[in-house]
């Protein structure tokens, strides 16, 4: 079984990005446990900080964190491609706010190691797009109110990445 230590060791060996001189963007899912080879979120954040510290590319500018359906308390997915909204309890709202707060703390720690523009990207199905972008913007606003952003760590950009697949043709298509 993989332990945090063994994961960390192999990650440190693998993710030395000092040779990648044209690296512009590092993209990760908003690690909630399984993002980096099933290690704990705290270790995942430290490993990402390490990966950032090895970057020597002069064109590196962007760090994108992807948020998927399971990162939002108010979204449930009964089947693939069929997310739906549900009501969040006050406790869940508070828990989600704390979760975002911790992510921002980690982003700030990473930012100290390597300068980047933070992008929060909602990588969800179209039907929960509006909700997820709203939650991310609310998290950014909460962070702004609590700690604030400045020219060194500017306000993150919240974007949506369309996720869509083309359907199979209808069974009875006119020829």
């Amino acid at each position, binding site marked *: 079984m993989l332990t945090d230590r063994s994961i960390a060791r192999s990650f440190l060996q693998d993710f030395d990005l000092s040779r990648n001189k044209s690296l512009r963007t590092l993209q990760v899912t908003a690690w909630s446990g399984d993002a980096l080879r099933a290690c704990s979120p705290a270790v995942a954040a430290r490993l990402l900080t390490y990966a950032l510290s090895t970057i020597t590319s002069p064109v590196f500018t962007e760090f994108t964190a992807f948020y998927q359906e399971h990162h939002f308390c108010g979204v449930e997915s009964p089947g693939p491609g069929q997310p739906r909204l549900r009501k969040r309890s006050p406790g869940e709202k508070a828990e989600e706010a704390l979760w975002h707060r911790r992510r921002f703390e980690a982003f700030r720690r990473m930012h100290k190691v390597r300068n980047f523009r933070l992008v929060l990207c909602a990588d969800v199905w179209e039907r929960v797009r509006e909700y997820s972008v709203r939650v991310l913007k609310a998290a950014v606003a909460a962070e702004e109110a609590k700690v604030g952003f400045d020219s060194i760590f500017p306000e993150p950009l919240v974007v949506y990445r369309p996720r869509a697949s083309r359907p*199979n043709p209808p069974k009875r298509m006119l020829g």
Partner: protein
Amino acid sequence: MVIAHLIYDKRSLLSCSLICSFWYTATVPHLHHTLVVQTFSRRDGQKIGWPKPLQEASKLGLLPLVKKFRVRVGFSDTAMFSRKRFNWRTLRQFSALRSVQELAIDYLDIPSFMPRIRRYFGHFSLTVQSLALRKPRGTSRQIVFFIGLFQHLEDLKLLYDVIYPQGEQANDRTLVPSFIPPLRGQLAITCFRRNVDLLKDMIDLFGGIRFRCMDIFNVKGTRLLLGACADTLETLRLCPTDPHG
């Protein structure tokens, strides 16, 4: 122009196609852009699997319109996509897929197609730009040989599950790919725990790889890949969003 906004909405496209012959002509390439063929033989008593969708599309002459073709094998289905699935008629229909740009095949049994693999996949050679293989079977050389069938291949996906069966067949070192694809787009690899020979062979036989974007999750040989794309890599994704499509 209006049609371009509806390309993901099958019902609207279908409605548009019924308006007049001009709208039909405009919508039909979008309606038949993607063809997914499953290998499941029966569901609700109906025969839906391979090669029925291929036969139906062939009857109507729609196969040349397909730009994205996927052969899907279900989780419960242990069968491979092998040469046994073809007869002369199926092969003729399969060969009519002449415009496919994105090709995805689950559980491709490459050894079963050897040595006449070009007879089955040669018609994709000029058009395919994106290839996705989920749990392909074969030696490292055979997989690299298969990838080398596609002259203009830019994007490559190699998707494995967490558990990969131990023990690989001996490599046939005489197999040399027919073409050197550009491989300048995106590389996505998940749960790649097999021998890194596949990656080494790909780098050696294709004269290096030049991917601009890499999507890596649980890959043995990450260091090798990052080193091989040292001059070209612009975007690194450390966790794929939807590894199994």
